[in-house]
């Protein structure tokens, strides 16, 4: 048995981010499930991997990493001989754009989209509660403003960092995938270049495979 070990859950957004990278580079890996409902992510063995008590974590021999965006970079660098270059670290201008749009995902896109997904999917399906429509509505307004920026960007370049697919595009997948199974998926209809970009990236075999393990597939 070779390859790396991912501790997480195939339905988790952040675990999916890491699985996508592993699939893109064709790496051998094992997914060890962490049982969130019983609090396994807060158990001592998992806290030893991730002191913040979250999934995913990745083990590669003696090395343990956490934070899905950090793990993603680690995987892509480790397997760069595979021929899949999603970081462009050999070219400063290109790698700078990858970093800019990775940050945009983390600081602009994610804070707007994740409350919508949380309220409309996680709260009813996993917490047995009622969605807070006020939070959804205000997040949708924020999200539309973000999508305007993305629409303008994707009108000028095929992918976010340029005319090449990169980790920046990949990183947007997990939460967007979940938005698509909520009634709010229709928001993308007003942003044709964003919609086309989404259809393009989700046609990749790695995306189809990881998507199949997520909820609502």
């Amino acid at each position, binding site marked *: 048995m070779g390859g790396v070990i991912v501790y997480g859950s195939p339905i988790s957004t952040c675990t999916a981010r890491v699985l996508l990278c592993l699939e893109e580079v064709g790496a051998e890996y094992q997914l060890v499930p962490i049982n969130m409902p019983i609090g396994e992510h807060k158990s001592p063995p998992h806290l030893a991997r991730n002191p913040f008590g979250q999934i995913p974590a990745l083990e590669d021999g003696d090395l343990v990493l956490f934070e899905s965006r950090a*793990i993603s970079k680690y995987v892509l660098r480790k397997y760069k001989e595979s021929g899949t270059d999603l970081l462009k670290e050999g070219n*400063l201008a290109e790698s700078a754009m990858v970093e800019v749009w990775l940050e945009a995902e983390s600081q602009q896109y994610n804070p707007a989209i994740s409350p919508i997904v949380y309220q409309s999917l996680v709260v009813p399906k996993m917490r047995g509660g009622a969605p807070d429509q006020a939070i959804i509505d205000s997040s949708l307004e924020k999200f539309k403003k973000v999508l305007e920026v993305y629409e303008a960007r994707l009108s000028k370049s095929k992918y976010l960092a340029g005319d090449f697919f990169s980790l920046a595009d990949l990183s947007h997948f997990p939460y967007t995938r979940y938005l698509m199974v909520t009634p709010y998926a229709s928001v993308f209809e007003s942003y044709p270049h964003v919609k086309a970009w989404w259809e393009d990236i989700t046609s990749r075999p790695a995306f189809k495979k990881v998507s199949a393990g997520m909820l609502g597939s």
Partner: protein
Amino acid sequence: MAIKVYGLPQSNNALRAMAALNEKELEYELCPVDLQSGAHKKPEFLALNPFGQIPVVQDGDDIIFESRAISRYIATKYKESGADLLPVNSAKFETWLQVESSQFYPAISELNFELLFKPMFGMTTDMSNVEKQAEKLSAVLDVYEAHLAKNKYVAGEVFTLADLNHMPEIFLLLKSPKAELITSKPHVKAWWEDISARPAWKKTAASIPL
């Protein structure tokens, strides 16, 4: 043409970019953006950063926004100048860069906004939000305390960009009534005392009008 930083000298995120430039011993020109008059939402600025936020750095033909992308760009492009902020090879480095961004920053930036910036703009501090964010930050800093008991710097034995990215917010928090969140944790406090004694940081701190 000099490196241009579009921002403000008291802005937490602009300071992240300037701290990196100072560590690399690079000259730059600070071009103030008048947020109060909405300059950041006007077309000329949106052409630099379509999200309408500071900072933006312009270096020759490269225009970079998002402060963590900026500090990494500077550390990479100017690797041979000043302090080397990038470790040779480090999973721990990438991990703690993300920890700053996803665990540390959300709580501390909101605390600083409530305690320092709201009063500056004549807005009322939400004390229940302050307590909520303080509790979150304290829990996060417990993890830092354990980590820094075993590591001199967040990415290991050497000062890196991962430490630098924390500095503006800590500087600001220490000017607020919640300074004890940092000073009550011995290893966090010792780490701050070490990194803030760096000459490049002293230069950055001296430029902050607070």
